[in-house]
């Protein structure tokens, strides 16, 4: 039995959804409403005491690190291989994932959560917010949520994140000039890892991601958005993300795939 406890098909939360849909592996999706802080609920903490999503449970084996879990999924289940065979090509795939996980995705998360989540806390009772903070198990997560709830993320940090995202956009565009996918000739976990945070950039960062500035990245986004597996995963959301995916496809001129 394979169960995925996660939020939307977005960033780390979305990686197992994208990966499993690409492999064609059936699974049960338990929606964790991050907006309602369900990932800090006693029920979820019983599965992952760290209170981070996703949590993937395969026959009782719990996985909470999204990138190693994608490697597990690729190895443990049938379906198209999502990792190159050659060890050096795998190293390149992992290098992209490491850079994305450690540098790029946290920067995008800082920017997006300050724009989208921080306003929700304005005017809330500080005591109530403190009680919510106290439920967050990991100190580093608590520190980030505290900055969001009390709107204290330093502008210099947000600017530095924007710089890093711009650098990543340029770096990936250059890589994709000479190869169709981020790890080389074949679609791989590296593409899923980046797609999970980059799928909406033509809408969220139109001045930076467009036909003139990043033609190669845009072609890669079109190729990715056209994949039935990624489309099917994007359609699993319950909030604005699935609707936004439809809009992005329309804007990129990508057709709706049939049956995934």
């Amino acid at each position: 039995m394979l169960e995925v406890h996660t939020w939307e098909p977005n960033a780390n939360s979305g990686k197992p959804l994208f990966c499993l849909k690409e492999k064609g592996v059936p699974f049960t999706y338990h929606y964790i409403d991050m907006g309602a802080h369900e990932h800090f609920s006693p029920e979820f903490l019983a599965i992952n005491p760290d209170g981070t999503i996703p949590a993937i449970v395969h026959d009782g084996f719990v996985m909470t690190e999204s990138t190693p879990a994608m490697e597990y999924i690729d190895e443990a289940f049938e379906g198209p291989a999502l990792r190159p065979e050659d060890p050096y090509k795998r190293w390149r795939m992992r290098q992209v994932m490491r850079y994305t996980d450690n540098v790029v995705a946290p920067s995008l998360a800082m920017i997006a959560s300050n724009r989208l989540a921080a306003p929700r806390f304005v005017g809330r009772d500080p005591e109530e917010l403190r009680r919510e903070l106290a439920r967050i198990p990991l100190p580093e997560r608590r520190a980030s949520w505290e900055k969001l709830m009390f709107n204290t993320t330093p502008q210099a940090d947000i600017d530095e994140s924007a710089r890093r995202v711009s650098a990543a956009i340029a770096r990936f565009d250059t890589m994709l000039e000479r190869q169709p996918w981020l790890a080389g000739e074949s679609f791989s976990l590296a593409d899923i890892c980046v797609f999970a945070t980059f799928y909406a950039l033509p809408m969220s960062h139109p001045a930076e991601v467009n036909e003139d500035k990043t033609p190669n990245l845009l072609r890669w986004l079109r190729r990715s958005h056209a994949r039935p597996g990624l489309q099917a995963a994007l359609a699993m959301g319950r909030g604005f993300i699935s609707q936004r995916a439809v809009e992005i496809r329309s804007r990129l001129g990508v057709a709706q795939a049939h049956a995934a």
Partner: protein
Amino acid sequence: MISLYCSPGSPHSAAVRIALAEKGIEHEERRLELARFEQHAPSYLELNSQGTVPVLEDGGRRLTESFLILLYLDELYPDPPLGGSGPRERYLVQKWGKYLETSIAPHLAIARWAALSGRVPARARGGLAGLPEERRALWQRAGQGFDAAQLAASGRALLIAGQRLAADLAERDWLVGDGFTLADAAVFPHLAQFDAVGIPTPPVVDRWIARVAGRASVGPIAADMVPLAVMGPEAGRWG
């Protein structure tokens, strides 16, 4: 022929040296003096723009990031296998690799810098100009000294790391499964420095440190691991 650019005092270098020794892979070592900031010399930055050790050269291939190098070596030289047996163990090995990079190594570097009274001498400041912006910013921050809040947060993170190791080692001799794996090779050199920076470790972790250090392949490498005041990976900036 494999060449390893490394420094014996660097835990990340030690991890790769241990894996090479465990697998009996012939190689040559090119040692850098980190105390003399040789890792920031323009000729080295051409090998690795991040200015970090180790770098592994294998024919025309040049690899960075020690844990990813360990996975590469294990896939290229599968005898003896160190990546874990079966997908579950391999997941756990990679989970330790990720935890090491994000929750141990950055904080150990900060605690070590404070414990060893690290400083960036005037002659090393010019070398920082050649680094990518985030590495340069990290070194500049180190040069100014870390504040009490950062030192406290890093100390807490390392204590938690010791507890997490203790939890996994409660019922087994090695971090993953029944034998020595890349998880032990990668994590051990960092944990072995906790004592030198004043971070206490649980007894079950101390016994594991002694167990790893007692391996024939590890002993000489462990004896070389003198802590140096150098920066590690950057600590997470957002959760």
